[in-house]
C-alpha cells in the first residue's frame, strides 16, 4: 500500500451520498477491500441512517457540503468518490429546489474542497447517460464524444450537464488529479429501488403513444464493480457504463408480464406534472424524454479500459423480473398455454370439417 503515492490503491477514500442506496453499498464494498486503509462516508445532517447495518467499517461524517471547507485537506484524503446525486425531486424533501441544491451546488462545493486537498490524486464522479440530452436528430448510439444537441427538458439532465461542466473546470485546475466521470445508464437489479424499478413494478405501465424507445439498463452489482475499480485503479476520462444490448420499452414491459397503457405525449407530461403536484409518483420530464427518445450508448471504451463488460441489458432486466415476478399480469406460461389451446381448437375444427365433407 502506498498512501499518498502515485500508483496503487488509495489510502483514505471519501464517499459522498452515504445516506442513499448507491453510496452506502459502495462505501461498504470499499471498506471490505483490505487495500484501502480508511473509508470515510459523508452525508448531509438531515438524512436518516437507513443503511447503518451495512456500514460497519465505514467512518461516518454528517456535514453540509457547504462546511466541507478544509475538511478534505485535514483528513489527508487520497481519493473522493462523489455519488451524492438526486435523480428525481422528492416532494417530502424540498422538491426540485433541494434537488438542484444537492446536485449542482453540492458538487461545486465538493470540487472546491477537493481543489484545496493537496494529497488528493483521484476523484470519481457519478454522472448519467442523461448527459446526452434528447433530440430527434441524435445519432442512434452515443459515444463519449457525442455532444448534446439540445439541452434536456428534465431537471436531472440539466444538473448532469452542469456537474460535468464543473468537473471539466476542475480537471483544468488540478491536472495532477485523476478524474473519472462515469455516465451510468439507469440502474436495475433484484434489490435496487429506483424510479425505473418502481415504474416497471406497476401492473399497468404508462407509455408514450406511438413511441417504443430503445432502453439500456445497468445491473446494480456491475455499477458497484465499476465504481470499485475506478476508486482502486487509475482510469482517467469519461466512460459510458451500461449493459450491452438493447431492450425496447414495449419488449421490456412484455417480458415483465405487465400491460402497457399508451398515453398521448402532452397528456403524459401533464399527468406527470399532476402526479408530482399531488405528491405521488416521481415520473418527471426526464423520464418522459427518455420514453420518447430512448437512449443507447456505446460501451466499447469502458470494456477496453477496464477489461470488464457489464452483464447485458436483457440479463440485468431478467434479474429484476425474477425478483418482481409475483405481480406479473401475463406470464410466459399462460401465453404458451393459450397458444397450444388455440392451435388445438383450430385443428379440431379443421378435422371436424374434413370428416363431414
Amino acid at each position: 500500500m502506498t498512501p499518498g503515492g502515485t500508483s496503487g490503491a488509495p489510502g483514505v477514500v471519501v464517499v459522498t451520498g452515504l445516506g442513499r442506496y448507491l453510496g452506502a453499498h459502495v462505501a461498504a464494498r470499499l471498506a471490505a477491500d483490505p487495500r484501502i486503509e480508511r473509508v470515510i462516508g459523508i452525508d448531509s445532517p438531515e438524512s436518516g441512517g437507513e443503511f447503518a447495518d451495512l456500514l460497519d467499517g465505514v467512518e461516518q461524517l454528517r456535514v453540509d457540503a457547504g462546511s466541507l471547507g478544509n475538511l478534505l485537506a485535514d483528513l489527508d484524503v487520497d481519493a473522493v468518490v462523489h455519488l451524492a446525486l438526486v435523480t428525481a425531486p422528492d416532494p417530502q424533501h424540498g422538491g426540485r429546489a433541494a434537488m438542484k441544491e444537492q446536485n449542482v451546488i453540492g458538487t461545486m462545493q465538493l470540487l472546491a474542497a477537493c481543489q484545496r486537498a493537496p494529497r488528493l490524486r483521484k476523484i470519481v464522479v457519478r454522472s448519467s447517460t442523461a448527459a446526452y440530452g434528447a433530440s430527434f436528430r441524435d445519432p442512434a448510439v452515443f459515444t463519449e464524444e457525442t455532444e448534446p444537441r439540445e439541452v434536456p427538458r428534465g431537471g436531472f439532465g440539466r444538473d448532469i450537464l452542469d456537474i460535468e461542466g464543473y468537473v471539466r473546470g476542475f480537471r483544468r485546475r488540478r491536472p495532477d488529479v485523476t478524474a473519472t466521470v462515469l455516465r451510468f445508464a439507469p440502474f436495475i437489479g433484484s434489490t435496487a429501488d429506483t424510479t425505473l424499478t418502481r415504474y416497471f413494478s406497476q401492473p399497468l405501465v404508462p407509455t408514450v403513444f406511438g413511441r417504443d424507445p430503445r432502453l439500456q439498463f445497468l445491473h446494480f452489482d456491475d455499477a458497484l464493480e465499476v465504481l470499485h475499480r475506478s476508486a482502486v485503479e487509475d482510469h482517467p476520462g469519461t466512460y459510458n457504463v451500461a449493459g450491452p444490448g438493447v431492450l425496447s420499452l414495449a419488449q421490456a414491459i412484455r417480458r415483465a408480464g405487465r400491460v402497457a397503457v399508451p398515453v398521448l405525449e402532452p397528456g403524459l407530461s401533464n399527468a406527470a406534472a399532476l402526479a408530482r403536484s399531488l405528491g405521488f409518483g416521481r415520473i418527471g420530464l426526464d423520464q418522459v424524454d427518455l420514453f420518447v427518445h430512448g437512449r443507447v450508448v456505446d460501451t466499447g471504451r469502458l470494456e477496453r479500459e477496464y477489461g470488464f463488460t457489464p452483464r447485458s441489458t436483457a440479463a440485468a432486466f431478467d434479474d429484476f423480473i425474477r425478483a418482481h415476478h409475483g405481480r406479473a399480469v401475463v406470464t410466459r406460461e399462460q401465453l404458451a398455454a393459450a397458444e397450444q389451446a388455440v392451435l388445438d381448437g383450430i385443428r379440431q375444427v379443421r378435422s371436424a370439417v374434413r370428416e363431414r365433407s
Partner: protein
Amino acid sequence: MNGAGREHAGAEGGRFDVPLDAPDPAAEPARRNGHRPADPAAAEPAPDAAAERDEPARPAGSAVTDVPGDHWDRKVAGGLAFLRRRLSGDYEVDEFGFDPDLTERVLHPLVRVLYRDWFRTEVTGIENVPADGAGLVVGNHSGTVALDALILATALHDRHPGHRFLRLLGADLVFRMPVVSELARKSGGTVACNPDAERLLGTGELVGVFPEGFKGIGKLYADRYKLQRFGRGGFVSAALRTGTPIVPVAIVGGEEIYPMLADIKPLARLLKLPYFPVTPTFPWLGPLGMVPLPSKWLIEFCPPIPTAHLTDSADDPLVVFNLADQVRETIQQTLHKLLERRPDPFGP
C-alpha cells in the same frame, strides 16, 4: 439473432432463386418436403401417406410439439408462435432498434403486395450488391411519399441471394412523427447522420441512402426523373471513411404513383411540412386519394464504385464532390436507359 447473423446463415444456403411468395429461406425446403421426402425410408408409393408421416418443419421456439402437419397447419402454428413471441417480448432488437423478426414476418409481406402485384417491379443488376460485408446503396428519390425506399428495401431482401436487409437512412422529420418513427426504426432505419452511417457500415451492414432528400420526393411531376442536388455529399464521406463500395441504384416508376401537380406552400408552412402536395386524386378524393397509381417499376443496381483506395481523402471536399457527381451521373444515365425500356408508365 441480429441482422448480420441472419445474413450469414442465408448466404451459406448458397445462391438459389427463391420464389417471390416465400420470403423466408428457411421455410422453403419444408414446403417441398411433402412431395419430395428427404428420408429414403419414408419414400412410400402413396404420396398422401408420405405427406402425413413427414416430419413437419416446426417454427423455431414453438411451444407446440405434436404437429400432425400439413401446409396450413404449419402456417397457423408459425403465426401463433410469432404472436406468442411478440406478446412475451421474446425477440431481439439491435442497438438501432432494428427488429428482424417483425420486419420479415409483418412489414415485408405488406410491402411485397405493393411491389409485386401493384407495381409489377422488375429488378436487374442484383449481382452488383455485395454478397457480404458493407455496401452503400445510393438511389434517386421520388413519389411525394417515400414509398420507393420501402420498395427498394423489400425488393433487395427478396431478390438478393443472401436475403440482405437494407438499413435505410431517413430524415429527422421521419423520427419526429410518432408511430412512423417506430416503424422506421423497427424496419432497420435510422437518422441520416454520419455517426450512424459509419457505425452501420463499420459493422458490415448494407446501408441505403437517398441524398436528394425532400428535394427529390417533393418535386413536381413536370420535373420527373431529373435528379436534384445531392447536398453536401455526407454519404460519400461516410463511405470513404469506412472504405465501403458505393452501389448506385436507379428506380423508375416512383414518380407516377402520386403525380404532384402543385405544391401549396403556405399550407405546408402552416403544417410544418416540407411541401403540401396536390395530385389528380389528393386531396380531392380524401383517403381514396392516398391509393398510389399502379405504375410499372424498374429497379437497376449499377456496378459498385470502390472507395477503399480513397480512405485518406474522406475530408477532401474535391474528392467527395467528384465522387458524388460520378454517382449522380451514373444514376441519371441509368434512369434514362430504364425509361427507354418502359415507354408506357402504366404498361404491364
